[in-house]
């Protein structure tokens, strides 16, 4: 995973997340949308054959006073706890 910031203001972030695909991008987008202070979050990805930008680009807009990078950090923390909780619940239920 390689991060390249394209645009960054106080309330907006556009960043390339090289080496990732829908598997992770959609999960992190979902977590961002549930993070407090995030006004909008999405990612864009083009197919390999398109010839242009093929690495996913993550866009985040936040409400005043929330740094988008902090929001992203919080969302990735949330993904980790979600996954841990899921694994725990799964292990407990496994026969």
């Amino acid at each position, binding site marked *: 995973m390689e991060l390249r910031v394209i645009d960054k203001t106080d309330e907006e972030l556009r960043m390339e997340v090289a080496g990732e695909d829908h598997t992770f991008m959609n*999960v992190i987008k979902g977590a961002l949308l549930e993070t407090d202070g995030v006004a909008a979050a999405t990612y864009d990805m083009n197919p390999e054959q398109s010839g242009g930008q093929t690495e996913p680009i993550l866009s985040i807009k936040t409400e005043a006073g929330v740094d988008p990078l902090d929001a992203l950090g919080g969302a990735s923390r949330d993904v980790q706890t979600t996954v841990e909780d899921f694994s725990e619940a799964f292990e407990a239920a*496994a026969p």
Partner: protein
Amino acid sequence: MTNDFEVEFIEPGERSARFLVRGVSPAVANGIRRAMVADVPTFSIDTVRFVENSSVMFDEMIGLRLGLVPLSTPIGDFEEGDVVTLALDVEGPATAYSGDLESADAMVQPADENIPIIELKDGQHLEFEADAVLDSGKSHAKHQGGVSVGYRHLQRVEVAGDAGEFEEQEPNILRGVIEEAAAEHADADADATDGDLVATDAFDNDLTNRYPGKEVEVHDVPDAFVFHVETDGSFSVEELVLRAAETLGDRAAELESKVAI
């Protein structure tokens, strides 16, 4: 975020299982599914050095077949890119099976013993050494540990009323798993109670078998997914699911640490 997961096994199994997960968002459910298919690495033969091949097939064709033999992949002991050598030496007349492969590492063995590689006639000889590499399904489908991985919404079936008395009832086909919400009408199953999870195969996938003469309504249960997971034998379903979840968590941790800088 609320993470109240509830997992319940509907059909437990080593290589194939069905389980219900409640409280999972569609994004996470799909993330785990995709990770099971493409991100959990398994061993698979990648390079073959032929000593002798007088069979009727070209080296390349045998190489392709070897790549498709699932090899057991123990947890934690290997890293992506690790190589394990396997060898085979069979002389005709005989059939070379996956079970004839001899591995340099006792932990990495063919998951099935009886996959035919090629039938050798009298005088034909197949001998080679092969390198199995640990890699993920993203690079080649032969490294996919999950062969058939998917999910459906859990479906709740409610009886809305009686079907027209003199009408011929059309079959009402439904596949997946239902959550019983009209136990008193489930004529075929006397012990049915509300909240039961019933695989639709139990009533031949036809709701009119279970609720004869009734008009039913089917609704998806939000945030409840029934996963069907089948592995190629490289590891158990349980390991596959846990490893897939782990790869997602690892990437989130990587992102968190990179964002913090």
